């Protein structure tokens, strides 16, 4: 039950990132997705992995609160295609996670597919650096969470690596394009 709710929150957070242009909206979306992924990973891969993922993602969200376009910017005019993407992507991920695939954690499958898919789509559709870097952080967290789908003994390194990338990506120098 808790995992199912966490899967929904992961989708909600990724959708807020897709629908937001302002730094508060992006930080909220990143924090929601991070907490949900951390909760799912916590139950599957153990507390250290969950805490590592949570710390990395929340650091990224905190950094996002301080850098980027001011305000919430949730669902600005012209965001209907993005809204359709969130709903359609969520339904498709739900169908794949529950109807097509099977295994020990449907919530993890749903969360990974929906967060990686929506974060990847957001990177392809935006030119704003704060949006791009938030999406990259979420993609890293989702990629690490996918390591929980393997049947082999889980190592901590993917979670730590993803946390480091998520936490560090917000500090990327923002250089303007220039001639060589």
């Amino acid at each position: 039950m808790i995992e199912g709710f966490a899967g929904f929150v992961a989708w909600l957070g990724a959708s807020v990132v897709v629908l937001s242009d302002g730094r508060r909206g992006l930080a909220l979306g990143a924090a929601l997705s991070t907490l949900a992924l951390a909760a799912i990973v916590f139950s599957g891969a153990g507390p250290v992995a969950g805490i590592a993922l949570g710390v990395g993602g929340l650091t990224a969200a905190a950094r996002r609160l301080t850098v980027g376009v001011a305000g919430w910017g949730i669902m600005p005019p012209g965001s209907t295609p993005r809204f359709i993407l969130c709903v359609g992507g969520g339904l498709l991920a739900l169908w794949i996670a529950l109807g097509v695939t099977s295994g020990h954690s449907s919530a993890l499958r749903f969360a990974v597919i929906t967060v990686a898919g929506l974060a990847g789509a957001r990177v392809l559709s935006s030119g704003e650096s704060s949006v791009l870097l938030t999406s990259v952080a979420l993609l890293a967290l989702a990629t690490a969470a996918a390591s929980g789908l393997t049947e082999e003994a889980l190592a901590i390194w993917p979670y730590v690596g993803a946390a480091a990338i998520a936490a560090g990506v917000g500090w990327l120098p923002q250089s303007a394009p220039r001639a060589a």
Partner: protein
Amino acid sequence: MSDGYHRAHRVLPEAAELLVLAAAALLFALGFAPAAASRRNLLVQGGTGMVATAAIAVVPTFDLALLTIVGLGVMQAGIPGKRTLAVRLRAPVLAVAVLAFALVFLRVEGPAVLERFAAVGLVAGLAAAVGLFPYIHPFAADEPVAASPIVWIAFVGPVLAAVVLSRAEGLLSVDAGQALAAMLIGLGVINMAWGSIASWLTDDTAAAWRYSFLADWGLVLCGFGLTLSDGRRAALLVLFGIVVGRLPLYLVSREPRAERVTSEGPINLVVAAALAGSAPFVGFAARVLLLRGATQLFWPLALVLALGMLLWLPGSLRLGRSLGRPRGRQAFGVALAVAVNVAAGLYPLPLLAAAKL
């Protein structure tokens, strides 16, 4: 399902060899980069890229390799350049997203068709990461090399391809593996044609060099797709030619000259021959192996590949002429690259043995 990495914690021999070659290319770049370029920046940026590329090869899980690609993509996007952050981030992020989906499909239980989707994801992700058709990275001719797509197609890409495709063998079933091989060959033929024709016909010489890398990658994909030892050997030799031949010559061609003249001297013809894969250069040995493998597998494929290989000629002549009349340090760099390619072409066995092929 195991992701293949856990079966063998050691570094793949092919990847290790390509890492050494990439290090040699970095040293070449430090020695023969345009005089105006900052050696310190090149060393820091190239060294970081080298470490990240090595990490792709040595990390114990596929997930960590994907995270390394994300990290490398973000770091490269932070280097000042002509393209925007969004343009530079898109390709690695798309690659990782697609490869992550492939990994999910390989790990979950479900219908057999999921493995075929995973095979599509592996090929598409590899093409997106390296910058092959249909995911050709946007290119700015006068961008610094460290910030340009050349890093992916000629420096990181060879190791990445060796790692992803060799691990894919352990991940996929026979049926999905055959689908993967067919996709590699199909994409390889398209890249051969697209790259060689574009290299011949495009207006910009720097873009022509970039397209020539694409054409070589077509051969690499075909080699990996043949699933025979000859194919894998051919792929390794073409990758050798990319890292130790085409990349150094491209770097030399970027040397700013007072007058941008083309020349048709003997050195230009020799360079053109090396780029076209004629004897006695390493490209020729690779092509012979590729044609032999294709003949064993399905002889009409060998015919298509042989016809496709002819397309290298006009583009290579153009690129050879673009070097002008190399002098001094530039001439030494060209001679070094040509000599290494001749040596590997005449006696490629040590290269193949080092990669255990």
